[in-house]
């Protein structure tokens, strides 16, 4: 029986040492580079412990801040994390701890859902919001894929529409016990938040009151969050427009970091504080 202490494995490429910030009772791992408009990036249900090329492109133009959610990457899972309201308050406190005042938020996938919840409760804190392939809504006949009901290799296939062999550096090593346990832990947090329901049924009633300028970034063919969800967000939010990155799957920030960053930077600079 393996009794090795649980270690947080380091991804093969793109790993960087995090910085640490005390937020309430927990230590948050985060990465930050660049100057300009303060931009909080909220990651999806994976892809942690890395400084990705997309981040680097963003950091060339803005002050890019990428924390790891509680229960992801190297940030511990606190007992109190039970729902999105806990995350909203956590990110309010995180922004306060960094003295961000008003800032821009960019959320990818699960992070897009968190960003939308943050905007519902603290719209006055947000200079702009960018939702990239965001989860959080339910569309009849167009459900989110149930990522819990498939093996990791199928998740990878859906993330890159079958081209995952080109993106192995972004994916956990499925042959390494530490990596498998790390992914299990991160999916535990994901399940805690989104097992059932896998969306927030209150968002459709709440989003129309959110007057934050919003850019919704969609893939060309998203097989995890169906394309229609991007349009639905733009319909519900009073000040939103859609941009799609051609030739991409759900993992668009890994596939087209330059194109995605260029669109988002232009939008953020157009809504400078």
């Amino acid at each position: 029986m393996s009794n090795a202490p649980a270690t947080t494995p380091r991804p093969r490429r793109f790993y960087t040492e995090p910085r640490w910030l005390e937020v309430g009772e927990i230590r948050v791992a985060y990465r930050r580079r660049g100057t300009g408009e303060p931009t909080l990036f909220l990651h999806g249900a994976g892809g942690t412990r890395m400084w990705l090329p997309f981040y680097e492109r963003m950091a060339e133009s803005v002050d890019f801040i990428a924390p790891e959610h509680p229960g992801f990457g190297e940030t511990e899972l606190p007992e109190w994390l039970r729902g999105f309201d806990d995350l909203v308050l956590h990110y309010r406190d995180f922004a306060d701890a960094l003295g961000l005042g008003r800032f821009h938020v960019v959320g990818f996938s699960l992070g897009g859902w968190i960003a939308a919840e943050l905007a519902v409760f603290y719209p006055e804190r947000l200079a702009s919001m960018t939702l990239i392939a965001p989860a959080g809504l339910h569309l009849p006949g167009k459900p989110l894929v149930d990522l819990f009901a498939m093996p990791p290799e199928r998740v990878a296939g859906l993330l890159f529409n079958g081209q995952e062999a080109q993106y192995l550096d972004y994916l956990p090593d499925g042959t390494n016990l530490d990596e498998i346990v790390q992914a299990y832990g991160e999916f535990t947090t994901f399940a805690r938040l989104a097992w059932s329901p896998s969306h927030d049924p209150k968002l459709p009633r709440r989003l129309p009151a959110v007057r934050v300028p919003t850019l919704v970034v969609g893939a060309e063919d998203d097989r995890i969050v169906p394309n229609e969800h991007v349009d639905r967000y733009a319909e519900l939010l009073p000040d939103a427009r859609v941009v799609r990155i051609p030739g991409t799957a759900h993992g668009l920030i890994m596939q087209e970091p330059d194109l995605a960053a260029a669109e988002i930077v232009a939008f953020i600079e157009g809504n400078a504080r």
Partner: protein
Amino acid sequence: MNKLLFYTINFMPYPFVPPPEELESAWVTIPNSHYDPRVGHRLYTDYLEEEIATERFGYDGVLVNEHHQNAYGNMPSPNLIASYIIARTSRIPVGIIGNALNLYHHPLRVAEEVAMLDVISGGRIISGLVRGTGMEYFSYGENPTWAREKFWEAHDLVIKAWTEPGPFEWEGEHFHLRYVNPWPRPLQQPHPPIWVPGVGSLETVEEAAKRRYTFMQVYAPRWLLVKALQLYRQIAEEKYGYTPSPYQLGSAIPTYVAETDEQAHREARPHLTWLFRNGLQHPEYFAFPPGAMSKKSFRNFLGTIIEKNIKPLYRLTYEDLIEQEYVIVGSPDTVIEQLERFQEQSGAGVIVGAGGQWGAMPSWMAMKNMQIMAEEVMPHFRPPDGKPIWAREEPKVPTTLSEQAATVKPALAPRIRLDEDTYIDPRIGHLPEQVEAARARAAAPAGGE
């Protein structure tokens, strides 16, 4: 005393489904268009007759269980099945190895239903308390990440509801109740015996040993069964300072007995193959949803699987099942020899799955398995009279009205009010002379003449 207690468990499979090669899973997503209720009616009828026959065969008890949305076992409500069995039997204990507390909207419902069954059956209920498989967290949309804490909170609530006078208040993490006050209360005091099934989690063994519950290890290679039961005994002795009774140590070992070894294998092979390879077919992602185990337990679990090269149940061949002793198949002599060896290794006093229905057996074959078990195996583990354990004791409540009237006096009589200060027992309220007498008593000055 009986050296070994024999229980059957009938999963009530629905075997008329495609083979595993043509399905994602025999659980959760197997289309229920494969379920023909007319076939289901026939199956339930057969299975229930097999359950009821256990009393005459002389089993020590009959177990039912709970699973959802699958072809392996069609008892989503074990209490309904238990209710049917207690109505058709008189003395045999019925073990409910549900109820999956996390899958109930409210654990009080479990406290109430099990207490009802216990009262109706005259104290014949064994109550399992279980969490359910990973598959059931998919089927019920139940969050696996707090399954363990929610289970133990529900457990504590059920036990308190059974044992402490109500009404009382319950303020937990998952349940908030101003008034816990279930009617009826269970007949067996302080509560029905509790059994906890386990699949290998150390935490479950520990929790069962701590509370002196009967632990029942489910489907495992023999070395793992023995290890789990040894661990139970060790925890009981070293941590909680008592020596567990053999009746606290159980295992589910599918058993098939026939006239000869050769005949037994011939008959058992196709059905045990269906049970494991078809009925239990499910992908790992259904069995182990994230958060059902802690990260540490998951690491240990995965490490053991890799190190000991443990195959998923549905990949076991018939030869694996026999060689690794997941099952026992053979003549009466072979089965006796194997059960004795298992007892020596583990100290277990409870065997579950001793004969009965496995897989897609025709009813006559399940009955044959039970009859040979009853007549040629069980007596070997019993005193010369061959009696099951329940035949060694009196029923827990009187079974005739004359005994009831002679021995059970209610603490209070029912009363209805006639006038101010005048009450009468409604059972004599239709008799004018009794009504008059009651009024006369009320009119008489207090303290008499």
